[in-house]
């Protein structure tokens, strides 16, 4: 077994199995009709309204699926939302402009958009050049997108994916022309900028939940329940750890000290 399994990662394997099992069980339960009720995310609820506003104003909707490549899960989450959003713009006959800074993301966004327009029954209105590649260069990309915002004056801007220092440069440009802006990222350092500059911000995990909320697909909603159960376990472990650490520091009882260090080992990356 030693040659087959990295024993230092036993705790990681244990949590992967537990979390995977909980998620699979939640998906199965949802498919059998026990669909969890999900609170409405304001950013997700505002998407249809934001696209509607663009239609009324006769202006385009801008969408940027982050500034990382397709190997970043946030980019994939952004593209999943793009699929739903493109179906909406197809139905409402609204102009959609997707700006990317990676060629692979552009190719994936075109596929997602094309499929969404086909599903909405309007394949003839889809244009591949709705999705364009700008530049791999961080600030070159910002210069182009900010310039387009100033000239085209989109009614709505979506910033959904992984962003770095460009987050505020993009969101402030949108804010200055009065666009409704909906952002979402799991980059903790960029969240304050989006919160300050955008109307709605999907914080961290909400970005990954957005496509599930938009589609209402029971299987996807099931995974949200699994996530919540995982959070409950994490919260319980934090509480237990805090109590044990406090009790160990106050009493120095060997049993409690051992229990506390065992719990700490369980959650240590790279094994005990």
């Amino acid at each position, binding site marked *: 077994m030693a040659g087959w399994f990295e024993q230092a990662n036993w705790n990681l394997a244990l949590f992967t199995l537990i979390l995977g099992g909980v*998620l699979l069980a939640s998906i199965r339960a949802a498919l059998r009709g026990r669909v969890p009720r999900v609170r409405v995310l304001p950013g997700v609820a505002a998407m249809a309204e934001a696209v509607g506003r663009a239609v009324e104003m006769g202006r385009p909707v801008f969408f940027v699926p982050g500034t990382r490549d397709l190997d970043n899960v946030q980019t994939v989450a952004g593209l999943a939302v793009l*699929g739903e959003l493109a179906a909406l713009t197809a139905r409402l006959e609204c102009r959609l402009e997707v700006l990317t800074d990676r060629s692979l993301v*552009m190719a994936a966004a075109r596929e997602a958009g094309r499929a969404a327009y086909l599903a909405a029954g309007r394949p003839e209105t889809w244009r591949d050049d709705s999705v364009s590649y700008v530049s791999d260069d961080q600030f070159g990309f910002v210069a182009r997108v900010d310039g387009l915002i100033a000239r085209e004056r989109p009614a709505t801007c979506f910033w959904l994916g992984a962003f770095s220092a460009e987050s505020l440069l993009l969101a*402030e440009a949108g804010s200055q022309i009065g666009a409704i802006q909906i952002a979402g990222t*799991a980059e903790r350092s960029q969240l304050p900028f989006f919160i300050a500059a955008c109307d709605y911000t999907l914080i*961290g995990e909400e970005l990954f939940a957005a496509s599930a909320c938009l589609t209402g697909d029971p299987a996807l909603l099931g995974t949200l329940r699994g996530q919540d159960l995982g959070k409950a376990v994490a919260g319980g472990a934090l509480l237990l750890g805090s109590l044990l650490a406090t009790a160990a520091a106050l009493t120095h009882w060997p049993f409690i000290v051992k229990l506390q260090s065992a719990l700490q080992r369980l959650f240590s990356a790279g094994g005990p």
Partner: protein
Amino acid sequence: MRSRAPQLLVAAVGILLVLTAFVPRPAPGAGNAWQGFFAYIDENFSVWFNIMAVFAFGLGAASLLGVHGGRVRRRGRDWPYSLATLLAFGVTLLVGLLKLGGPPGLTGDPADSASILGRIFAAVVSPLQASMFALLAFFVASASYRAFRVRTREASALLAAALVILIGRTPFGSALTQWLPEPLAFLRLERLSLWIVQVPNLAGQRAIMIGIALGVVAMSLRLILGLERGVLGKERP
């Protein structure tokens, strides 16, 4: 089959990459076939991804040329900007490919500081990047102004915390509350600012981090199981 094949590929790659975290890494020249296979996957997957991205770069270049070339041809709105983009693209590509002014040969660095490409970077690209980055200072000011406008209780709390941190991190802030006696030393601005960063701020950040980690796991599972429709251009039900 057209939509099944990419899905199967995503699932296979996803499962293989998860497994690499749980297979021991052998020492060079040692280990069994199982370990060797996963070590090979782990080391080379990012290289394969980069190779794929290089091929996709052609698609990006085609998109860039199509969008801007079309605008120049039609003399569309703001076409001179498109012309400038095309010229910049063409010139940079040409001097880079031909390694003009730099060390020649296959191993010569195209971005060597003596080459024309190197000089373009030093004299044009870097200053332009710095200018764009410098805009951040003004944008931070305007965004902060909006965020700190005292309209709600939350905004007031944000403003108070920000003021304590900003002033507490300066020598002036430290001097301002130095007179507080030892029993009230925790109220000194530098300590208060440190406390805000290390306690309530860190607690919030950790909560977000736990949520993100679980979200990433759930999203990955959705992709492996093929539940996330639309990302691969998959048809919807």
